């Protein structure tokens, strides 16, 4: 009984169904483990965690320069910026906005630098449903290739104060 001291000689190898199940479970665990390195090798969707130290001031300055040089329009008072295909793009999370709006080309790859200048934020691309964490002081580089055309929203999914639900952004893919 589980609540009593076990009989002497309780330490013995598993037998019967128990043994079969442990074997099956172990195989399944190893399959699941191997899937992750395999996907880094063959898959197209991975989080490498590439990041660089930055400061809110330095990152704000970089975003401002990016907007000034590559701005192509405006929506709701927010600049729309079109980075060069294969080039760098910058996206700043702040209470409570993703800034600026990005305009990308389908099938082109961009290095999107995402950081926060105040609290922690969550980059969540809808309706695709891709999610990455954003921290102040770290420039998180997402090397992304849009595979579909259309207008996409970015929302914030890490609590960032009372106006958290106002925090949205946009990516346009042509």
């Amino acid at each position, binding site marked *: *009984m*589980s*609540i009593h001291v*076990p009989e*002497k000689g*309780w*330490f*013995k190898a*598993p*037998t019967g*169904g*128990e043994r*079969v*199940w*442990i074997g099956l*479970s*172990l195989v*399944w*665990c*190893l399959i*699941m*483990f191997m*899937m*992750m390195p395999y*996907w880094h090798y063959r*898959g*197209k*969707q*991975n*989080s*490498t*965690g590439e990041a660089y130290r930055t400061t809110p001031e330095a990152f704000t300055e970089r975003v401002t320069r990016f907007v000034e040089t590559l701005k192509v329009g405006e929506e709701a008072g*927010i600049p729309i910026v079109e980075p060069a295909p294969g080039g760098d793009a910058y996206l700043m999370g702040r209470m409570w906005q993703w800034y600026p709006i990005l305009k990308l080309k389908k099938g082109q790859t961009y290095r999107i630098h995402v950081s926060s200048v105040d*609290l*922690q934020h*969550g980059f*969540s691309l*809808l*309706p695709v*449903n*891709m*999610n*990455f*964490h954003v*921290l*102040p*002081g770290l420039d998180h580089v997402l*090397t992304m*290739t849009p*595979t579909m055309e259309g207008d996409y*929203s970015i*929302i914030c*999914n*890490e*609590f960032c*104060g*009372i106006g*958290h*639900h106002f925090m*949205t952004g946009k990516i346009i893919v042509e």
Partner: protein
Amino acid sequence: MGNFESNAVRKCDTTGLPVCLTAQKFIRLHGVLAVVFLLVGAIAAILLALTRWPKIHLLPQDWYYRLLTAHGLNMLIFWILFLEVAILYFCCTTLLNSRLFSKGMAWVGFCLMLVGALMVNYTVFTGTSDVLMTAYLPLKAHPAFYLGIILVAVGTLIGVINFFGTLYIAKRDKTYEGSVPLVVFGATAAAIIAVVTLLHGAVVMIPTFTWSMGWTAQPDPAWYRLIWWGLGHMSQQVNVCAMVSVWYLIATLTTGARPHNEAVCRTAFVLYILFINLASAHHLLVDPGVSAGWKIWNTSYAMYLAVLASMMHGFTVPASIEAAMRAKGYVKGLFGWLVHAPWKNPGFSAVFLSLVIFGFIGGITGVTLGTQQINILAHNTLRIPGHFHATVVGGTTLAFMGLIYYVVPLIFQREYYARGLAMIQPYIFAIGITLMSFGMSFAGSAGVPRRHWDAEFTGAPLAAGFDAGTHLWLGVMGVGGTIAFIGLLIFILLTVTAVFFGKSNKGRAMTPWAAVEPVAGTVVEEPTDKTPGTMVLVIILLVSFAVYYFANWKALVDVWHVR
């Protein structure tokens, strides 16, 4: 046998086991406080569910985040820690035939936990700490918030040390012979993990507290996340360990179950101790600054060896029940033993439903969402609470309810009223939590964020939102949450009336919940290792697991390329 002073022990009138009266007092104190915090958390829970149900959207935003903070802390920390200390005190005294190591330490631990929990609740409800449970930097709470958490952690640690002290004196005084019982072994595993967990809590909370006082610089937010989740996730593994111990305990009390091979069960507990503390990584899978190799190794608990442990318990618990039922003569077909299990016994039904919900919903979703790349589809969406409400609530809390249906008659020595209602309560709660978990998981699959007041984004400069189907799932979540709340309220009402006004059963055995009688004419034999029904159940589990797991990889193929 035993190391009791003559007037400090009583013999249980039901089981014949010795009950240390000092331990009994603290089991009662911790138990009552646990249920009080459960009630606070539950009231917050229903208001949150009714806010995230878009048709109702009850609370204003400040109170939504405030109650979300209160809900997380009261449920995940206070309710569970208070009850876990009670479980530890029970296991090391009654099951080892020993007195409690130190009454003074028990008082100090209890008072620190209580003061800490009150401080935290005070700062939260007065609106000075709207930082959610995780309190991610640079969000700043009132210093008393951090100090309160530190006090709760220290108080719990003192309780855990009292547990180890009792193990020591029991061994020294030879109150038992040979190895400790399995349930005590599981509780010891939980206690070891708790020590590591609480040390992480100290490492992260002390510099955060000194920062909030203005004495030191702000700790690094990325560092904070890593260490905080050493506290936050690992404490859930304490719950898993405690819950599995309760599974074994209640299976024995309700059906006479006895695991066929205790070496397997104990090895599984050791695997928890060795590997489960890597799980902090589950929260950093799409974080910047942490490498892919680090993420893969840690999120898989070193090649999923802790998952292997859960899968082993997932076999041994039902197999021990099946073997015990078959030995009593319920041998018909594959599932005759299951059909005739004591389903009207709320202890048994709570534990069996806990096992099913934890395995089929909580376990499968947890491992899948914790897969490094699949986490891109899940991080900070409602899929995450969809997962952990199936582990911590449908699993741990439900199992603990089953336990309390025995603690009240055996330790408080009071009988439940309205026993018919008690018999259906675990089912109401299980159905509610399952529905809620499904609603959250499917809404989260569309990207609905967790911890978010308005998924319509009303007033945002750039529009965003979700389709009608997703709103339907949020409605399912609301309905499920309401049903679960009703189930929880019934449990609290029944338990509180039993504890304070229930008929005393001193001097006689407790009125049994539905018991399992051997089939007429059966000669009850020793249970064997022939458990074909359990084998079929676990194969169904494995197939469901594989289908869900690979369906998520399939969904991942459809999103943008990223590296």
